[in-house]
């Protein structure tokens, strides 16, 4: 396997820890896992990075392809791009104190993503308002924030790609701002810059990011929240206990987070909670998301304007790389909202001016979206389909997974594609050795 392929995958499997139970087989929404020789193996091109396999594995053999915090290098300028889900991991702590903790850990700059989420929200409202008359995109529009949802659509529901809201994702807005404003300064001084995305899930950096204008682009690294939590909590506890909080000079508004409600973005429904849209809907959970996408494909929900999908239950707070349980985090967020209320910090007029300039436009061409959000599978011909039907009649169809495929249909497909042999089937091969 080439190095490039390994680096594009979102999860790693530890062969020594894997017991071959195969619980990951069934939860994979794109059926990208097989058990070969009693160990889980993945089909890299089909992985969309949802992390369901990490969640289900009892042996903890699956981990996200993120890096540890020990890679922080003194010689480099480390910039943390912080998902607001991080704030919810510290109940009762103000977001600015969490960012200060990160600063003390050695990050030169901390970028608060909720600032860009607000920007995105404003642009979305504007797009929807205009779409009511122009009908540029079909209803219902689907939130592009969760990259797993976009990949899932590209892989399983390509006919819904035109429904994906064509507004630049907050992560892309954030990365663009940092690359334009912050990085050139350091580059001129000859310093190396590393962008650390602090994520609640194994999605890595944003694939829809604009390509860097400068030739020497910064290195981009994904960090899981649970990777930095043990170190960060020490700093946060200190800051909480301290009488006088050390002053941290910030140059840009988005380097700190003054509002208490920023972490609401991580909640399911957080995106639409404060949005000025009449008919919107929030759906969370992998099964539920697939179920709703199927219905949209059949022509339902055309009376709804905007649907927020998150493949993790309870939204990003339920991401697999979080440090504390999603319900505890949710309760912490709700307490914060009760205390501080919902409020915006950006001026609508400024955003609208940016909107007019086309600053928020993202890729609309479905085929480009597919290539950006990867995950593909070769199509089958009619002949191959007939062969699959024949194999299906041969095998018993109990979905026992003994062959190492998640279900009989997938196994039949593998046989026709030449990736498995009929003998692997327990009902055909009898007592012969199976893959599990």
């Amino acid at each position, binding site marked *: 396997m080439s190095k490039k392929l390994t680096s594009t995958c979102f999860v790693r499997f530890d062969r020594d820890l894997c017991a071959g139970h195969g619980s990951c087989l069934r939860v994979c929404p794109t059926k990208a896992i097989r058990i070969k020789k009693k160990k889980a193996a993945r089909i890299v091109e089909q992985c969309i990075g949802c992390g369901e396999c990490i969640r289900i594995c009892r042996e903890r053999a699956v981990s996200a392809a993120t890096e540890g915090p020990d890679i922080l290098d003194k010689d480099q300028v480390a910039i943390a791009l912080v998902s607001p889900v991080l704030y919810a991991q510290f109940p009762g702590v103000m977001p600015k104190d969490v960012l200060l903790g990160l600063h003390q850990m050695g990050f030169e700059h901390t970028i608060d993503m909720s600032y860009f989420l607000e920007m995105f929200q404003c642009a979305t409202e504007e797009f929807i308002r205009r779409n009511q008359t122009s009908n540029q995109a079909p209803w219902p529009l689907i939130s592009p924030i969760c990259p797993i949802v976009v990949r899932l659509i590209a892989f399983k529901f390509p006919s819904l790609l035109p429904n994906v809201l064509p507004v630049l994702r907050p992560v892309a807005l954030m990365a663009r701002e940092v690359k334009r404003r912050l990085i050139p300064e350091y580059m001129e001084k000859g310093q190396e810059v590393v962008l650390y995305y602090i994520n609640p899930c194994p999605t890595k950096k944003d694939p829809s990011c604009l390509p860097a204008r400068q030739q020497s682009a910064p290195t981009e690294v994904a960090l899981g929240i649970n990777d930095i939590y043990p170190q960060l909590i020490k700093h946060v506890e200190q800051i909480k206990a301290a009488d006088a909080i050390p002053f941290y000079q910030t140059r840009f508004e988005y380097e700190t987070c003054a509002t208490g409600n920023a972490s609401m973005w991580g909640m399911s429904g957080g995106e639409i909670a404060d949005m000025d849209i009449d008919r919107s809907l929030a759906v969370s959970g992998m099964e539920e998301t697939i179920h709703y996408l199927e219905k949209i*494909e059949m022509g339902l929900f055309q009376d709804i304007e905007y649907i927020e999908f998150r493949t993790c239950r309870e939204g990003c707070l339920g991401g697999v790389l979080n440090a504390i349980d999603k319900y505890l985090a949710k309760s912490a967020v709700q307490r914060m909202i009760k205390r501080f209320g919902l409020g915006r910090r950006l001026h609508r007029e400024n955003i609208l001016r940016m909107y007019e300039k086309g600053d928020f436009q993202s890729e609309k061409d479905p085929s480009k979206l597919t290539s950006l959000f990867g995950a593909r599978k070769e*199509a089958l011909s*009619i002949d191959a389909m007939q062969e699959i039907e024949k194999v299906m009649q041969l095998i018993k169809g109990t979905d026992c997974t003994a062959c190492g495929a998640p279900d009989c249909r997938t196994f039949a497909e593998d046989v026709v594609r030449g990736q498995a042999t009929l003998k692997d089937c327990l009902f055909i091969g009898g007592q012969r050795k199976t893959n599990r």
Partner: protein
Amino acid sequence: MRAILLGLTEDADLPLVKVRLARLTAQSGNFKPMPQLKKSFHIKGRDFIRAGEASINVQNLLKSMDFDPRLIRRVAICGYESEMNVVMHGGDGTLSIEVDNDKLILEITDDGPGIEDIELAMQAGYSTANDDHREMGFGAGMGLPNMKKNSDQIQVESPPNDGTVVRMIFFIPDKGKSD
């Protein structure tokens, strides 16, 4: 694939395979390629919770093949609308999909009361749905018109008290031309 199956027949120690293989060979006439692929799915009447499953199965089948997503979407919409018609009015039925080289045929049959006036039913807004259906958000009278809009050809046969057969044809656009 044929080679895979033939390879297996040589395995003398697999009696189970032999039996099944013999049955299969008898069924499909010695592996002669069938003219097209056909699959049917059962629809249970009045089961609103599971309604839509048959068309989801059709969608999934088509998605594993190389069809234009827009075509699949049209088939999906027609499949769902017709499935809802069966669930609401028709009692039990089947949804079947036939894949041919140049067209897809979606056929839906049920053993319900049939349609009294097909021409009237084809009109947008005409509905025989009852209040219960409307409470669930169905019965806007857009079923058949929507199916007509999204398919290339539609045939409705409904002899009195002998169920209904709706046959929809979707032509597969020539790949070289459309791209």
